[in-house]
């Protein structure tokens, strides 16, 4: 069932999508073929898929670790922006310098920038009990305004005809390509490395166990000595750090500069990717590729069969709807498995826990 649910979801999306778009007067089967099949047989599109999927995967992995522990960071968009900005700050300060130390410094700054932005909802949550869904969401809008301010004012390229954007980064500040002659930059293998590391950490370390057990059974976790506060901090800092990492990888990679159009909703899309990948780092890699496929294929479908771009959004939404709908297949099996050790809820707080625990569970 673990694997079946996403497969069923994608299959249902294809089926219903084909029927729906035929009814709407488009070429339904053609749309499916153009979006989901054709790009897979084109080596150029594979490069596009990898480049597009890398940041989504990195962000989603960070979020998934938090989601497993019931920490709902939906502020990845802002953390992504702040990560990009922190790295850009380093880049602008070192614009006239050379050296192979610059790029690693930028990447480190990116991680720290994302972490710093995630510190706010984490501190509010642990100190005051502020709901992190709401606080992290609000901070996304603040982050965008910080970006606008820096682009319009202090960081504007003095040689850029007064357009609000920074200077282009130097070659020492740009991600190298790992496969010569392609678009595959350093961020792509890094995404895979992040996924593998996260997978091993979650499976093999005490902290990984803590994140899972807190999500599955908070009461048991407390007995085990895992503090709720430390869980929130770990989840937010990992989520923020990885989102910031993705931000600077995008800025130093495909963008090669910072622009006001830097945020394109990756922080939100990554939430979808995290669920599509069943909160499992390796599943997320695959899910990021599937989502990248809907973008890349959707663009092809626009030129080849004139399918409007809005249709891509509808496809993505349907796929997520179906995935969330088939989630229950997994959860029922899981819930019955954990009913015994948890016991019947006795107190009010335990009852809530049981109700709230829900099956985000997903023991890998």
């Amino acid at each position, binding site marked *: 069932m673990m694997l079946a649910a996403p497969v069923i979801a994608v299959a249902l999306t294809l089926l219903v999508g084909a029927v729906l778009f035929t009814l709407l007067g488009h070429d339904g089967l053609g749309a499916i073929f153009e979006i989901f099949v054709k790009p897979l047989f084109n080596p150029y599109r594979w490069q596009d898929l990898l480049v597009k999927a890398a940041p989504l995967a990195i962000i989603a992995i960070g979020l998934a670790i938090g989601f497993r522990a019931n920490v709902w960071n939906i502020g990845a968009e802002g953390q992504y922006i702040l990560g990009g900005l922190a790295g850009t700050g380093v880049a602008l300060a070192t614009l006239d310098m050379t050296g192979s130390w610059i790029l690693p410094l930028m990447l480190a700054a990116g991680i720290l920038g994302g972490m710093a932005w995630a510190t706010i909802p984490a501190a509010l949550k642990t100190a005051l009990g502020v709901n992190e869904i709401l606080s992290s969401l609000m901070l996304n809008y603040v982050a965008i305004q910080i970006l606008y301010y820096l682009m319009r004012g202090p960081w504007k390229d003095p040689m850029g005809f007064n357009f609000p954007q920074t200077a282009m980064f130097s070659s020492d500040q740009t991600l190298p390509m790992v496969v010569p002659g392609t678009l595959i930059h350093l961020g792509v293998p890094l995404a895979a490395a992040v996924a593998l590391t996260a997978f091993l950490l979650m499976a093999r370390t005490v902290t990984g166990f803590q994140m899972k057990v807190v999500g599955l059974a908070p009461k048991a976790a407390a007995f085990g000595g895992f503090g709720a506060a430390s869980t929130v901090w770990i989840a937010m800092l990992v989520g923020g750090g990885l989102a910031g990492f993705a931000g600077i990888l995008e800025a130093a990679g495909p963008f090669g500069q910072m622009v006001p159009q830097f945020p394109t909703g990756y922080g939100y899309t990554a939430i979808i990717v995290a669920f599509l990948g069943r909160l499992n780092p390796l599943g997320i890699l695959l899910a990021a590729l599937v989502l990248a496929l809907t973008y890349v294929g959707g663009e092809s479908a626009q030129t080849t069969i004139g399918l*409007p771009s809005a249709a891509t959004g509808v496809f993505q939404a349907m796929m997520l709807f179906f995935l969330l709908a088939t989630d229950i297949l997994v959860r029922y099996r899981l819930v019955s498995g954990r009913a015994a050790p948890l016991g019947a809820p006795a107190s009010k707080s335990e009852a809530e826990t049981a109700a709230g625990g829900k099956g985000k569970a997903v023991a890998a």
Partner: protein
Amino acid sequence: MFELSRRKLLAAGAAIGFAATSVAPAFAQDGKETVKAAFVYVGPVGDYGWTYAHDQARQCLEKNLGDKVETSYVENVAEGPDAERVIRQLAQDGNDIVFTTSFGFMNPTIKVAKQFPDVKFEHATGYTTGGNENMGLYNSKFYQGRAVLGTIAAKMSKSGKAGYVASFPIPEVVMGINAFQLAAQKVNPDFKTQVVWVNSWYDPAKEADATRALLSQGADVITQHTDSPAPLQAAEEAGAIAFGQAWNMESFAPNAHMTAIVDQWCPYYTGRVQALLDGTWEAENVWLGMKEGEVEMAPFNAKMPEDVKEAAQKIVDETKAGTYEVFTGPIKDQSGEVKVPEGEVVPEGDLLKMDWYVEGVQS
């Protein structure tokens, strides 16, 4: 250390380009039987503004050249890596020419143009091609239309104050504000233009509210450099006058809509594709205006007084004839200091990076 590898990569990228496009016989100077042209849009074709105008021109191009041209487009393309991917995909798919229609597509277009020397690229509103010989730049002198609007505004305004709903203070917008005010000042030396920045290209509700604020602060003419017809509707509601943006928006405000600056990209697109068919295409950096038919005024509203129509038409005719240039000195800046001496014309290069306002602009 990356310097070297990057250079190598560019060469390798170019090799991919050859591999991808050498399928189609593509030697520009020989001309072509048919041309495949693609367009990259920043917004939806249904925005009824900037992107809508480009797509109307695409359809017009198809009408003009019939089966000698085959067009396609990709809409809602985010500026940045997404744009680069789309442009590259279009080049790989065998398009002969790709038009990228937003400022933020400039750097992505430069990158892709380097890798596909046999494909032609045309970027709207940018300032550099990064040295690519297969990439052209084009833009329209919308400010010429702004001068017409300024003339009408000053002639018809009773309060002597116009409200300007503006998006972001980039040179294109600053230049438009100045052209509007300079033309209005020629009619009424005391004329003022009040700018409200809404910090968005498209936010109908905010554009409408900004219009209402300007009207309640004494402006009785509204003009805009944002994309939605909302300011026009708000002006119509209040009985003020206003102007359309990018396209004839008369249907939204039959009484308020005096005229509109119509982005007429069709002649340019037709000309460039025709040049490709003839084998005469060359990379150019052009900034075309009313004379070339790139900037048009929508028909004047029947309610406009005759003398206003005449004054407006005079600006149009003289601009077309090349005898009128709104950025002719003396021009004072906001502090009253003479920026451009008598008789001198602001060079195009300075207009394209303009970041100061003329006297009478309140921003």
